[in-house]
Every structure is written in C-alpha cells, then in structure tokens.
C-alpha cells in the first residue's frame, strides 16, 4: 500500500512498516489501526518518521505511536533510540516543552460525595493554581535557588516544604535526572522560567478532576490505589518557558555542529550532535536541568492542589488522602538499558510525545508497582475521558519501553475555533457534566473535544499491540485550563 509517495506495509491490525529506502538507516514502525492510518496520512507525520530514520546511530526502527501527528523535525508521538557511541542527540527529538508530562493524584474522596462542593472547589483551584498565558507562580526564586531547582528537581521541592518523600518515590527518576548542569542553561532561559515555577501554562495543559469510571485490570488498579467512583486529580504541564528556551538555544548549537561536521539531514529541525561530543554532552546537561524544572513544577502544583482541596473541604491530609499515583514525562531523552538482537545495550531513547512504559519487574519503577508495571497516563480530550495504563514486556521488545501519550489532534486550532464559539463550549461541556474554569475562551475553543482523535481508539491500539495494558478509564468532572 502507498499513501502518496510513502510505501506502507501492514504488519498486523495495529502496526505498519515503512520499508527502508534512500538514506534511511532503519525502517519505520507505526502503531495504528487501518482507520487511524487514514487520518495519519493526511499530514506530514509519516514523512517525519522517515526523516528520523536518517539520524546517525538510530537503532532498530523509527517508531510512531497511534497518536502521532505532524511536529517539527520529529513527529509528535515519535520514539527513536540511538547507539551511545555512534548516535546523536537531537533537541527536536525531545520537543520544546522538555519533560512535559502528567501526574495523577489519587484521593480518599468519592465524586458523588464531592459533587455539591465541586463549583466551590473548581473556583478555588482556578484561583490557586496559576494558569493561562503570562501567569506567574507563587514560588519566588532567588538566582541561587533557580540553580538548585535545575540541579535538584523534586528534591529541591522536598527541601522547601512542597513535597514528601513519598511524592518523590512515585515520580519517574524520583523527580531528578542525574547530570543536570545549571551552567548549561542560558540566562535567557532562566529569566523565562524565573516566575513560572508552579504554573500550568496554556494550550493543552490542564488540571482535571476525574472520576474513576471503569477498571480493566483490577490488580494494577489496586496497586495504584484506584477504585470506581474515586475522585482523582490529573495534572498536565512541563518545563514552561525555561524548557522552550533550552530547546531553542541548543537547536542553534546543533545546527552549527552539523555544518562543522557536514551532517546532512532532510530537515533542519532534526539538528543534532553526537552524544559523545562536547555539544551533545552539554545539551544533555541542559536537558536534564530543564527536566528537573518540570518535575519541580508539577510537584509544586501538586502541593498547591493538595493544600487547596484540604482547605476548601476542611479536611486534614489523612482524611483527604491525596497521594501521588505516579508522575511520568512524555518529552525526554534518557539513557536506558535495552535488549537488541539478543544482547543488552545502553541506548539513548528520544521520546517526543511518547510515554515511558516499563513492565513489571523493571528496576526503575516503584516497588509498590513491581508486580503490575509502571503506571502510564493518557489524557484524552476534555469532554470524553482519560486512561490509566500499565507498562508491559511487549513495549520493551517493540518500542524501547514506550507507548502513546494522548489522543493526538485531528483538527487544526483554526478549524476548531471556527467550528465553535468559546461560550458555547462552556455550555456544551456543562451538558456533558463537566465544569470548566479557564483563563481564555479562545484556548477553550481550540481545545474542543472534536479537535482530538478518539482516545479510546488510541488506547485500544496500544493495548492490542501489546505495548501497554488498559487499567482504568477516567471521566472528567471538572477542568481548569489556561
């Protein structure tokens, strides 16, 4: 089968191969149903899977997830693992929002009991959890504190009263990537991030209150502390302006490196440097620092959610029981150990709009989840719902321990906005039983449920493909957006 000039070979009902042609060093592998593929081929995402396959040192496959869509350089929903000696690191393979990710907080509360207080609670969360363009956080950082956040991530938040030890235990990499060097982060980047610690931002970032609606894998749900009818809090944000600027700064560095070393690639946004080069090492140090800022940002927000809910409901921490299920990023590049061709190798895995999904028994997941696999959170659109998944061994064999990260857009922002008015979105959401508080009607119109693919279909593909397993479905009852 060919879609325009891209040859595609269907391997199974959930996976497709793009055979190696031209300068591709490996084939492409895309997880999608036949119906989804009709949508995917409408933009440049598959072309970008091919472009990524040209990167020096890429191993096994250039991979696309079912929520893949057109990004810059790499597709969003792309995974690429590199040989650490011969391979490259590419800022475009991580994205501007470094370590953008999701955190799920569980509680002892049930939605039915909470419902009469929801309007008051949502108003308070909208007030206390800064969101929207240009919003500033309540944490005031001195210059030396910024460097400590960049070096320590969630550890800094624990030392400053915003986190418990348990919060860190249930955060990917315990909320701190090693090797972070604050000096590798420009002063401009630090200025952009200075007032933004503890802010959601805008666009598709959000805070949601959800109800656990259905369980598919009760043993995993029990390990994660989830039960039907439960109120949970879902946070989606990243490293804010600091991360965007780190990406921008290092795209320049990498472009100069490519000119110097005559690396020729199909797209300038694939700018990269060898992992072992000075430029590559320095970007990895800045990347870790920005990732730590993102961990700290989500931790400060979680603290703020916890404090606000307890205050509004007049409950103590023990009664409210708001605890971290897990915090995991979906825009990162990490050194990991994977088995390839029968031997274990250290590789650098780029995940841009893809979530790490390690299986039961993996040493990097919390002991409490050792028998069921790492939790993975897949936000859908704001009207339909989201999913909790668990990592499975198949992901280690097929996708470097990775799975999807969201529903993926199917409609441009302009199309979405033209199809509705902000105010009518409020009304439509209320009819669906979802309370909405947002800083901008325009953002809300761009984020209408119809603008996104069906998250249920995306999750079905990764479940059937064997790169994650469905644990629970969450139904939104309130959304705070920027």
């Amino acid at each position, binding site marked *: 089968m060919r879609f325009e000039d891209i040859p595609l070979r269907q391997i199974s009902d959930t996976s497709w191969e793009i055979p190696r042609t031209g300068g591709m060093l490996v084939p492409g592998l895309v997880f999608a149903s036949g119906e989804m593929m009709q949508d995917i081929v409408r933009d440049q995402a598959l072309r970008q899977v091919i472009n990524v396959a040209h990167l020096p040192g890429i191993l096994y496959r250039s991979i696309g997830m079912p929520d893949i869509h057109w990004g810059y*350089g790499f597709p969003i929903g792309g995974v690429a693992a590199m040989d650490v000696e011969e391979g490259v690191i590419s800022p475009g393979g991580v994205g501007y929002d470094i370590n953008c990710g999701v955190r799920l907080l569980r509680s002892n509360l049930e939605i039915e009991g909470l419902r009469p207080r929801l309007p008051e609670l949502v108003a308070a969360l909208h007030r206390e959890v800064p969101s929207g363009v240009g919003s500033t956080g309540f944490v005031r950082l001195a210059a030396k504190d910024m460097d400590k956040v960049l070096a320590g991530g969630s550890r800094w938040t624990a030392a400053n009263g915003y986190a418990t030890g348990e919060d860190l235990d249930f955060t990917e990499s315990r909320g701190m990537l090693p090797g972070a060097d604050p000096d590798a982060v420009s002063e401009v980047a630090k200025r952009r991030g200075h007032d933004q610690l503890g802010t959601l931002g805008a666009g598709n970032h959000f805070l949601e209150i959800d109800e656990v609606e259905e369980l598919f894998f009760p043993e995993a749900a029990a390990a994660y502390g989830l039960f039907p009818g439960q109120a949970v809090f879902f946070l989606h944000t990243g490293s804010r302006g600091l991360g965007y600027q780190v990406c921008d700064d290092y795209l320049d560095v990498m472009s100069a490196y490519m000119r110097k070393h005559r690396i020729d690639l199909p797209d300038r946004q694939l700018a990269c440097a060898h992992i072992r080069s000075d430029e590559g090492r320095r970007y990895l140090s800045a990347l870790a620092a920005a990732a730590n800022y993102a961990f700290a940002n989500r931790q400060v927000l979680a603290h703020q959610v916890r404090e606000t809910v307890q205050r509004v409901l007049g409950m103590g921490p023990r009664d409210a029981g708001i605890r971290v299920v897990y915090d995991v990023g979906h825009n990162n590049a990490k050194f990991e150990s994977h088995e390839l061709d029968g031997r274990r190798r250290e590789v650098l895995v780029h995940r841009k709009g893809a979530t790490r999904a390690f299986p039961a028994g993996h040493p990097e997941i919390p002991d409490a989840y050792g028998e069921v696999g790492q939790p993975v959170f897949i936000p859908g659109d704001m009207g339909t719902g989201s999913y909790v998944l668990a990592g499975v061994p198949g992901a280690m064999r097929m996708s470097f321990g990775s799975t999807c990260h969201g529903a993926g857009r199917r409609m441009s922002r302009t199309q979405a906005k033209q199809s509705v008015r902000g105010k009518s979105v409020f009304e439509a959401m209320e009819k669906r039983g979802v309370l909405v508080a947002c800083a901008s009607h325009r953002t809300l119109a761009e984020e209408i449920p119809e603008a996104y693919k069906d998250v249920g279909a995306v999750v079905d593909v990764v479940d059937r493909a064997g790169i994650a397993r469905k644990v629970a479905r969450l139904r939104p009852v309130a959304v705070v957006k920027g």
Partner: protein
Amino acid sequence: MTRGRYRLLPHTADLRVEIRGRDLPAVYAASVEALYSLLTDRRRVRRGEQRTLSVSGGTPEDRLFRILRQALLLLTVDRFLVRDAGATMERGKVAVTLHGETIDPARHVLYREIKAVTGHGLAVERGPSGVTARFLLDV
C-alpha cells in the same frame, strides 16, 4: 512602507503562517506584526515605546528566523507587546523598528502561549508579485 498580509495555513497541532509583502523588509515587518496579532489584539497596544531588532548575514530564511525569535523574546522575557513594525535593509543588514508597550493586564489579553518559532518548513520565496514567507509557530 507597504504592509504585508498574513494568513494561517492548515496544520494539525501548531500555527503555520504565510506572509505576503512587496519586498523582504515588508515581509520581515509583517511577520513580526503577524506574530503579535496571534498573541493579542494589537489595536489595544499603545505605541508608547520603541525597540529595535537587528540581524545581518545569512539567507533571507535565516534572517526571518532570527527576527521572529528575537521578537518573541521581547514578550517572553521583557513582557513587551508590539503594536506595529517597520523594517529597513541595507547590504544584508536588517533593522526592525517596533512600537509598543509593556503588558498591562488591565488592558491586554494574551490569546495563547507561543512556545517557539521553529525552523520547520521555513521558506522565503520571491515571485513576480512580491515576496512570500512561511513559518511554523509551536503552540
């Protein structure tokens, strides 16, 4: 100065912008204005302060890329909003003069967060009726 015009081209996730102008300086200035039109209602921005952006060397695409990145930093670092822009170019050196003011939350609404100006699909093309530029903003 002849002002350029902009329109949004289809893109699933981000904002893909096309600018048309009589010549390169008109396109550079119109690109900055388009960037700020996508961020706020420029009619509400007063022309109280002036800023200048300068770039030189490189291709027209390189210059457009650097101008737009500098222009975005005015907002994200200095909280400055642009009302209008004019550009001159001499021997490959471009000077973009901007008028605007610092954000006043009482009068200005920011529509969206633009994370970055990307180099993806960045193009500047000359044709019989002028110059066309296309660029992608990550939102």
